[in-house]
């Protein structure tokens, strides 16, 4: 159990580090740029011009916070949840399934209703409500992922395609209903569509990168036994 947590933490630290670097080199400049454009365009209500915190502090805390987020994801999703679900995951590629589940839960499913919005884009929804909604959709995503895994195992005896198809149906149905039922905000764009597209691309690449790197490290770690020696069969060291 503690081995699993340690592995998750290591993977999360590497993923979080890479993601922090990404935020520092790509994210921060882009947000700053978008905000500058937005301020030139129109005055917007949130008042980032008069923030409590200096821009430099925001950049540093955002990088540190992003790295911490990676560590947290690693510890919780790959360490704890990964330990609990390990018997149900395939020997190879299990970490990537965990990563996919994590991405869908934390980002993918909530984005269906609340897509990432560039700074300067106003939503017609109260911020607090939008955040509760985001958290609720994360819960929907987690339940949908676990439910499809469960269905897969119930039906896998009829063959993998059947199990996989059933799992997909369960996931799409659960998420689809949630996305239809949830109130979705209107967006009032103050920035160009090009910037908007570039911004959304950056966000999506960043999240996929975070989960991808963490999953790859985690998958790699499974090949080592606790003494640090590479054992060629990942499944054996996982079985312990």
């Amino acid at each position, binding site marked *: 159990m503690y081995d699993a947590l340690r592995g998750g933490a290591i993977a999360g630290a590497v993923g979080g580090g890479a993601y922090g670097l990404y935020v520092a080199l790509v994210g921060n400049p882009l947000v700053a740029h978008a905000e500058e454009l937005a301020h030139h365009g129109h005055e917007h209500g949130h008042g980032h011009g008069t923030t409590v915190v200096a821009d430099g502090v925001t950049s540093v805390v955002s990088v540190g*916070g992003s790295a911490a987020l990676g560590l*947290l994801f690693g510890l919780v999703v790959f360490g704890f949840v990964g330990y609990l679900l390990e018997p149900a995951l395939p020997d190879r590629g299990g970490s990537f399934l965990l990563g996919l589940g994590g991405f869908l839960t934390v980002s993918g499913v909530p984005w269906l209703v*609340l897509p990432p919005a560039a700074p300067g884009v106003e939503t017609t929804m109260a911020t607090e409500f939008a955040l509760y909604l985001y958290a609720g959709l994360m819960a929907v995503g987690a339940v949908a992922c676990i439910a499809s895994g469960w269905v897969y195992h119930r039906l896998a005896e009829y063959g993998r395609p059947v199990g996989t198809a059933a799992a997909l149906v369960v996931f799409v149905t659960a998420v689809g209903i949630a996305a239809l039922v949830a109130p979705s905000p209107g967006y009032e764009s103050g920035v160009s569509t090009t910037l908007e597209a570039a911004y959304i691309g950056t966000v999506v690449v960043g999240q996929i990168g975070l989960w991808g790197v963490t999953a790859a490290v985690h998958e790699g770690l499974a090949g080592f036994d606790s003494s640090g020696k590479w054992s060629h069969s990942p499944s054996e060291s996982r079985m312990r």
Partner: protein
Amino acid sequence: MSAANDSVRNRIDTARGTLSSTQAGLGLLTVTLALFLLAFAQEPLVHDAMHNGRHVAGVVCH
């Protein structure tokens, strides 16, 4: 995965045995608090400091 005695239910039992309820509670609390601070806190100081990070993570904040 093939072994009958290695199942998700078993893992949950093992985790129950390994972690005391205090440990589990503390862990859950820490994780919730960290996630809340990073993504959902509305307190201006915290909120503004994580502003860029939240934007890059694609969490709508305003």
